[in-house]
């Protein structure tokens, strides 16, 4: 189904998932305006959110099934497999986040159903980021997502750390947006357009990129660097991830990051593929992000903080895929982000079960002896840890393996070697979690008595574990999907570069 964005009907059609989600978000907003006092209201809002996400996923599926695409026309919205696959990741991350939020919100007495509305708006922003084929659309989407997440980060407003997290995130995020916007302005100044494909076409014919363009590109990279928490722009990440409510931390580490990466891929490979300068920058960014994230994580005792730093390290692995580029790099990114979303959300879900009201820090030692008391929970966390470590048999390994293939195919053998060496470092902080659960005795009798997940969080964790193991052994379908998505991003760049 070829869509022509000049025709209103086609334009609406190409935005169908976003429209569905917006509609639901508005309905939900109306609902919570009247019903926002009791636990029951919160639950109903949660249910409606799930319904919204499912219907959005169906809309995405419908477009994907009909091979909807904007081909041969310059448009502000891209419609390709890359977008659909990325959208599924965002919707999946949001769904799992809702599932693990039910008990959490009740336990922490956050009886404000607006939580779910914000979650939907955040997801909407992410979907538009993956869809944007124009720098302005990407910027607006980024802001839509960010504003929702700023509020979510500080949702537990009675707790100082949550408020601190929100403020920090907001201030630094605003700076990052400033960088991004200024970068867009400079790029516009240099090329006269903000459309990715038109920029790409211009740059491929230009002999040398102008200084203004390079400055704009650098500012864009800084802006994205903040959002994906690449070292040295990661300073906010540990504090914000640590202070935010745990389900929101999970949402930020997976969905927000995936959205920023999706936009980064599109911008870099559709607009700036012809500019060679940024490859080296990405190379260095990847190296210091991987080493920095892993080394900092090594010193953490709090599991939440450790996962925060580890998410920095994983951003580094994905940056390797960005550096490698090509169809392989793009598909590797998608496979990796699916795996990362699953394993990271799974780990945070177990962390929520272990946490107690008031969000006191759960340290690695607090998990001692969990396996004897809660074998299934410990097993789930162990699978997530092994997957984060990149152990064979799990999806994390498949993702890493794909990134390594992408890197070596692009001639980046050194980068591949650095990736695995930093992964070895990560064993130093993932393994102690397993070690504490299985090899150390319970600190006190009944230390884990109140550790349990409600049935929806349990379903989420079960989905995560099954998904991790399934993709670890049989990733064929995921590959095919990622491969066609990777193709679609690069096909646009090449066909329009020709005329």
């Amino acid at each position, binding site marked *: 189904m070829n869509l022509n964005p000049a025709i209103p009907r086609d334009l609406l059609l190409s935005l169908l998932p976003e429209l569905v989600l917006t509609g639901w978000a508005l309905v939900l907003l109306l609902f919570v305006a009247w019903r926002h006092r009791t636990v029951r209201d919160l639950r109903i809002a949660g249910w409606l959110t799930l319904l919204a996400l499912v219907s959005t996923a169906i809309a995405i599926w419908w477009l994907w099934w009909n091979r909807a695409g904007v081909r041969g026309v310059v448009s502000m919205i891209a419609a390709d497999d890359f977008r659909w696959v990325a959208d599924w990741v965002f919707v999946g991350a949001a769904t799992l986040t809702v599932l693990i939020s039910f008990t959490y919100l009740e336990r922490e007495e956050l009886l404000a159903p607006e939580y779910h509305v914000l979650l939907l708006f955040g997801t909407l922003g992410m979907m538009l980021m993956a869809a944007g084929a124009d720098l302005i659309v990407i910027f607006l989407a980024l802001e839509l997502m960010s504003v929702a997440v700023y509020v979510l980060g500080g949702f537990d407003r009675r707790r100082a750390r949550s408020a601190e997290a929100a403020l920090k995130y907001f201030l630094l995020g605003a700076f990052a947006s400033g960088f991004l916007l200024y970068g867009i302005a400079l790029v516009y100044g240099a090329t006269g357009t903000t459309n990715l494909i038109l920029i790409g076409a211009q740059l491929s014919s230009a002999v040398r990129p102008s200084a203004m363009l390079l400055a704009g590109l650098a500012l864009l990279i800084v802006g994205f660097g903040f959002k994906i928490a690449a070292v040295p722009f990661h300073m906010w990440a540990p504090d914000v991830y640590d202070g935010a409510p745990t389900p929101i931390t999970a949402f930020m580490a997976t969905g927000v990051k995936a959205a920023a990466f999706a936009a980064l891929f599109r911008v870099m490979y559709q607009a700036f593929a012809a500019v060679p300068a940024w490859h080296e920058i990405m190379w260095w960014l990847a190296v210091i992000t991987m080493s920095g994230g892993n080394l900092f994580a090594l010193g953490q005792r709090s599991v939440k903080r450790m996962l925060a730093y580890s998410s920095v390290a994983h951003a580094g692995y994905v940056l390797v895929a960005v550096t490698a580029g090509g169809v392989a790099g793009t598909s590797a990114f998608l496979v990796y982000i699916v795996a990362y979303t699953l394993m990271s959300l799974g780990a945070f879900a177990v962390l929520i079960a272990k946490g107690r009201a008031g969000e006191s820090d759960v340290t690695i030692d607090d998990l001692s002896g969990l396996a004897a008391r809660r074998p299934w929970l410990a097993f789930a966390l162990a699978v997530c840890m092994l997957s984060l470590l990149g152990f064979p048999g799990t999806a994390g390994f498949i993702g890493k393996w794909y990134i390594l*293939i992408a890197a*070596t195919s692009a001639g980046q*053998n050194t980068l*591949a070697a650095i990736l695995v060496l930093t992964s070895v470092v990560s064993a130093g902080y993932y393994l102690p979690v397993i070690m504490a659960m299985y*090899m150390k005795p319970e600190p006190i009798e009944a230390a884990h008595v109140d550790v349990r997940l409600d049935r929806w969080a349990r379903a989420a964790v079960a989905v995560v574990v099954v998904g991790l193991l399934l993709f670890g052994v049989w990733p064929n379908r995921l590959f095919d999907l990622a491969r066609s998505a990777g193709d679609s991003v690069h096909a646009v760049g090449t066909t329009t570069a020709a005329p």
Partner: protein
Amino acid sequence: MYARWVLTALLAWPLITGVVVLLLPARLAKYVALAASVIEFAISVPLWWTFVPDGGMQFIVDHAWIAAWGIHYTVGVDGISLFLVLLTTFLMPLSILGSWSYITKREGGFYALLLVLTTGMIGVFVSLDLFLFYVMWEVMLIPMYFIIGVWGGDNRLYAAIKFFIYTFLGSLLMLVAIIVLYVHAGRATGVYSFAYAHLLSNAKDLGPVAWWLFGAFFLAFAIKVPLFPLHTWLPDAHVEAPTAGSVILAGILLKMGTYGFLRFALPFFPAVALSQTVQLVIVILSLIGIIYGGLVAMVQPDFKKLIAYSSVAHLGFVMLGIWALTLQSVQGALLVMINHGISTGALFFLVGMIYERRHSRLIAAYGGIARVVPLFAAILTMVSLSSIALPGTNGFVGEFLVLIGAFRTYPLATALATSGVIVAAAYLLTALQRVIYNPLTQHENENLTDLTPREIAVLVPLLVGILWIGIYPKPLLRRMEPSARALIEQLKPGTVQAPPAGAGAGAGGGQQ
């Protein structure tokens, strides 16, 4: 028919039964696990007769797995891996039987892990697809990590993580090397596949990259062997692991390193592996392993640590034999690999048995116990002698073949390595004397009980192996020979002497 399912069955059966054991009540675990491992052994035994010694791969099974990357499930065995598979299936029931009373907590988990470990180990030996090989190589890491970490001694956490990180470091670099090879072969031929034969035939023209790739493989395998100075994880892991863990570590896991050299590092990068520099480095490191390992073993107060260091020495012989690349030395190296599995496995069992009675591994805690536990003493003496390589035992055949084979390639190094045999006699016989002879001075030792029928059942198969290989190794050598010959022919064309008419087993058959 058998040829088509045997390897798959050997891989799947322990995995399935492992899960079953985990789900059953803990008190049934050991019985089911023992039955499963005995059945596993029974499945593997016909390999011995159906194997045709022709130098090629047999029992091949090949299915597409992840087609997008050219990953297949391909397995097969040749004369090099056949005995390692059989050794694995042979040692597993004994390990389970040997843990009968040693493991008292979380039995279900322990036996399930042992069974899963079996799948990983056999998988490493039979994989003919490098992706599959890598997965198996890593898969066996986790069960071993848990076996050491959960059921080990006092210092188990440290030993477990050290074991894990050493192995993980080496294997991840190997992973990059495998992928580089894959991309290289794909570029050269347009066919992207992880198949062993495909990568092997396209590992040429790598230029200086070959040195890096060899280095990565070398590191992974050398850590596993372990070659000096990468051996420091081994004493810790061996000492802290429960008996079955030590037996499997020494008996099988160490062989993965030497097997890796034979199967991958040497054939893939012959130019690098046989360059002067690498030869010099490997020979020197093997020699250091043989002599230093022996000398360090001599001063160990802990019997288990003594055996651990003796492993370093034995594996030094294997490395020397492999790199000498003559027919005798390679066959000898293969034989030492088997023998070490049997003899050192038996030693670890014996130490474990006496530890269960006296709760001490220190040599000084014993003395004169031959009068109290005569049967134990007799078996310990016999096993020690085989480890020292007394003629008439399996140890002699293997080490002697390595030495005479290696002498033609490295005369000086071999002469020095011979001293390792003497050192071995020195440390093991001294230990033997201090443990079972000497006067009986300590009262705690007066009431030790002798071996139980179950323990005898564990040891007798090993003793039979020791004597059989010691007296009549020809059936083994005959099955190894074509593969060893093919390997050497491939690496050093034209250097293998034609077999003397009628003596198919080369020098080996005539040793006794």
